């Protein structure tokens, strides 16, 4: 449209491309977390002390912020995954894919606001 620079051939998609990029990155991030999470949970078979010591790391303030990021990734991947399914199976899905993405972003903001407030409140109560 009003693109005047012609350097490079990088594909510049709009909402559709960015939602794909974030879906992919969040999927990879969740996958690696899951590998670690199964390993840390497996410590219940080693000893109660080993489990409690390692799980204690999740209660450290830096990890609390990390957990908000992790849940943010999961919630986006989940809602956007639902949008992908709607685009594939719902007749009007391809027509409204952009509106669906704004629905995903809106629901994500609401869910994450609620989660962040509750998670931080519980953290400060117990700390």
């Amino acid at each position, binding site marked *: 449209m009003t693109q005047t620079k012609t350097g490079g051939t990088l594909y510049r998609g709009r909402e559709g491309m960015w939602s794909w990029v974030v879906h*992919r990155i969040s*999927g*990879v991030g*969740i*996958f690696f977390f*899951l*590998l670690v999470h*199964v*390993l840390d*949970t*497996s410590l*219940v*078979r080693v000893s*109660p*002390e080993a*489990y*409690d010591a390692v*799980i204690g790391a*999740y*209660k450290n303030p830096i990890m*609390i912020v990390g*957990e908000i990021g992790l*849940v943010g990734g*999961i919630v986006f991947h*989940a809602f956007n*995954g*639902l949008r*992908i*399914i709607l685009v*594939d*199976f719902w007749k009007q899905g391809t027509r409204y894919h952009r509106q669906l993405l704004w629905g995903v972003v809106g629901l994500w903001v609401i869910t994450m606001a609620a*989660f962040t407030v*509750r*998670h931080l409140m*519980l*953290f400060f*109560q*117990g700390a």
Partner: protein
Amino acid sequence: MTTKNPEAVLPAHGIEAPRSGRIDPKYLRSGSGSGSFEMAAWLFMRISGLALIVLIFVHLWTNLMMGDGIHQIDFGFVAGKWANPVWQFWDLVMLWLAMLHGTNGMRTIIDDYAEKDRTRVALKGILFVASAVIITLGTLVIFTFEPCLMDSSGELLDSVPAFCHDVVG
């Protein structure tokens, strides 16, 4: 265009359907062995995704939003949950679906970016071995878990959940 002849616009006998026998079967994408596997994988990503929304959201809700949230999580908390077969089953299904979904997603990404055959085969080999190890380990942990641990004199450890005192005495 002001042609009087309708056949110039549409052939009298209709237009032949695309790929109707004109193409050598070896160029067709359907019927080539892996076609049905990829279709199943595509469908699996969607069905497992729907199930995972419920499985993961309830998991996060019970572990992080209810009770004392993150601070409640310790050995006794896990022992209490897995004393209930419903939670054992829940975590087992969540483990398998999430690992298979995630592994298949990673396979797609490796196919997208690793161009050299050897790199692709090597990365997928590592991926499949890692997934098999994690699925096996997670499954064994859920089913061989012993919540009411005792010390050498037969006394229950301090970290065990309260119900152990009723069961073991």
